[in-house]
């Protein structure tokens, strides 16, 4: 019997091996992220990090992002923006010029977002961020998208609901921090209240970091109000305001058209949080939301900051856009993002809007909820649309 020529054997075996391995040529896909990991916005920055990491972990567990014959392993590169404009600019500089990323998730605070956009706009880098400033979404925002709702989107519907369901209520007090969010958002909210026939009796601002609200609440309660609006307060402060107001004997409606801060409110105010009304982003009873919560809880403890699911969602949307475009190049992905309508996410199907308010349809529109705290549990009151 003739022996099979060794070279031939080796050759055939190699071809077989090569052939089987060829299915998955792996390449790295860098995803940039910017968030506040120090300073006043650290809660949000950490939430961003967790959300993005979760979405990326899911893709990695699937063996990477499969586009045709290639699989891309995503890698997150995240930098601290220190919640300032300068920090955002520096982080973006590094991501774009040093690390060479073409896609950035975050940041959250308007100054940081604008700082990032300063760098990314001339370079056509895709940015999926938050930020309330009216300068973020403008007709020229070809490459940046806003992935969370702003007061302009959710306040009118909520205030209308309040008017319909509590017709006897008249006087509103708004308490908010005097930071950028508070100063920007409150006028929008106040307008919504006035448009629905409420009197805004108090519009009080405080310096963040201050924790004793009893003087300001005493002042408000002495003036007699029916509704206490907690709007743009951070979760901790919202909880404190709720608790201290109830401690002082306030019996009216306490609502937060913003946040959401429901978990924290429950923790801080305990039984005093009963009947607290709040804006909520997703329905924990919804199976899609539940899956996210479970995945989050496997890695982290503590209350879930709203930006974790929001940025998780943003990253997922980005990946889907890449899949549909079959590419990781900026232009195809960007176009794909704009046409992603209908893709089902933890917040429901993707819908872009904002043409009439901002000049471009780059605002992610999601349905949202109004919830109430009853007996220590979150109860859904109503499904609302922007």
């Amino acid at each position, binding site marked *: 019997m003739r022996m099979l020529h060794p070279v031939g054997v080796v050759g055939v075996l190699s071809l077989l091996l090569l052939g089987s391995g060829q299915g998955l040529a792996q390449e790295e896909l860098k995803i940039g992220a910017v968030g506040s990991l120090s300073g006043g916005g650290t809660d949000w920055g950490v939430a961003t990090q967790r959300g993005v990491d979760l979405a990326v972990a899911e893709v990695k567990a699937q063996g990477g992002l499969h586009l045709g014959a290639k699989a891309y392993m995503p890698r997150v590169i995240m930098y*601290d923006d220190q919640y300032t*404009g300068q920090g955002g600019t520096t982080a973006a500089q*590094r991501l774009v*010029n040093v690390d060479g990323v073409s896609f950035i998730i975050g940041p959250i605070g308007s*100054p940081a977002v604008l700082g990032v956009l300063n760098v990314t706009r001339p370079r056509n880098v895709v940015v999926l961020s938050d930020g309330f400033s009216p300068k973020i979404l403008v007709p020229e925002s070809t490459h940046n998208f806003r992935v969370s709702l702003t007061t302009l989107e959710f306040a009118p519907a909520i205030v209308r609901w309040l008017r319909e369901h509590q017709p006897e209520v008249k006087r509103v007090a708004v308490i908010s921090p005097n*930071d*950028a969010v508070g*100063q*920007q958002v409150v006028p929008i909210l106040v307008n919504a209240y006035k448009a629905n026939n409420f009197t805004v009796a108090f519009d009080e601002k405080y310096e963040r970091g201050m924790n004793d609200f009893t003087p300001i609440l005493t002042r408000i309660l002495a003036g007699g109000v029916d509704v206490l609006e907690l709007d743009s307060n951070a979760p901790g402060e919202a909880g404190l305001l709720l608790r201290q107001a109830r401690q002082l004997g306030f019996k009216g409606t306490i609502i937060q058209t913003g946040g959401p801060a429901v978990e924290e409110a429950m923790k801080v105010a305990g039984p005093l949080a009963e009947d607290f009304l709040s804006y909520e982003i997703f329905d924990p009873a919804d199976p899609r939301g539940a899956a996210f919560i479970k995945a989050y809880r496997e890695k982290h403890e503590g209350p879930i900051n709203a930006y974790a699911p929001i940025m998780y969602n943003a990253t997922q949307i980005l990946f889907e856009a890449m899949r549909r475009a079959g590419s990781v190049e900026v232009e195809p992905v960007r176009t794909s993002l704009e046409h992603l309508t209908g893709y089902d996410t933890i917040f429901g199907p993707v819908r872009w809007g904002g043409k009439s308010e901002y000049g471009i349809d780059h605002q992610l529109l999601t349905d949202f909820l109004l919830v109430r705290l009853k007996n220590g549990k979150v109860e859904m009151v109503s499904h609302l649309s922007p």
Partner: protein
Amino acid sequence: MSEQASVGIRFHVAIRRSKLLRAGAALLVLVGWPLVIRGNYLVYIATLVCLYAIGAMSLHLILRMGQVSLGHAAFMGLGGYTSAVLVTAADLPFVLGLFAGGAVAGMLAGLIGPILLRLKGVYFVLVTFTLGEIVRLVFVEWISVTGGSSGIYQIPAPAPLFLDLTAYYYLALAAAMLVGLFCNRLLSSDIGRAMQAMRESESLAEANGIPILRIKVVMFVVAAVLVGFQGSLEAHFIRYISPLSYDFSESLRFLVMNVIGGLNSLAGPILGALFLVVLPEMLRGWVEIQWVLYGIALILIIRYVPGGLVDFAARILAFLMAPRQVGVS
């Protein structure tokens, strides 16, 4: 002695003798490196270093008199806001904004300086801290002018040319060098000597006829004007400002730059600015523990190298330049 060694020694000696040559070499490096090492990010950081060097040097003037100001960022803010508001709202050219910024900062310093500078030691520290807080609150509350906490966006660059990072770097470098030369002149002049005397012993200086309060006020105003310039330059560089850009931690940064760099010479704040702008950037890889390491670095430096980085560098240089025994052939 070998040929090479003797040439080496002659070169060594020539370098040491020729201050001009050294200065020229340094200038060449400072101006030339962006053309050789292309990297937008590095140029951006270098520009920030130049801008912060201006402010740090200006604080140095105050520190040289033995007064510690924890409110220096307030004057930077006045410069930044004045310039930004004038250019965005009133459409004035950048140069006017720059000088107006310095002027407004200087005016406040001139107005309250005579009152505040009567305080010494810790009291001066606390009153400047309070001043810084009040000015910041004004920036936050005076929404109609400053835009409040949202700040002022899309501040235009001084000219379309300066949208290029390298161009702005040269502008900042030029400004920093001018300020450095100016401060150096000031400190080596009669006034500088008077300041030195004041720092050592105020009562003695006064007895010698030095007009203490007047000098303090003048220096305070000069420092305010200079850091006001930084405020304006920085505002038109980052093109966005907010009250957060000028809070207590910024004032602290200037002080820390000076202490870490070294309190005894003008090189101190320059080195300090370099160190404190670059260090957080170098630590970016470790995002979370970045700040912990930064704090530890501060403690170690202030503990073991109290003369600051200048002292540290001087010691190393002395060690390196010490005449060595040449091997006997």
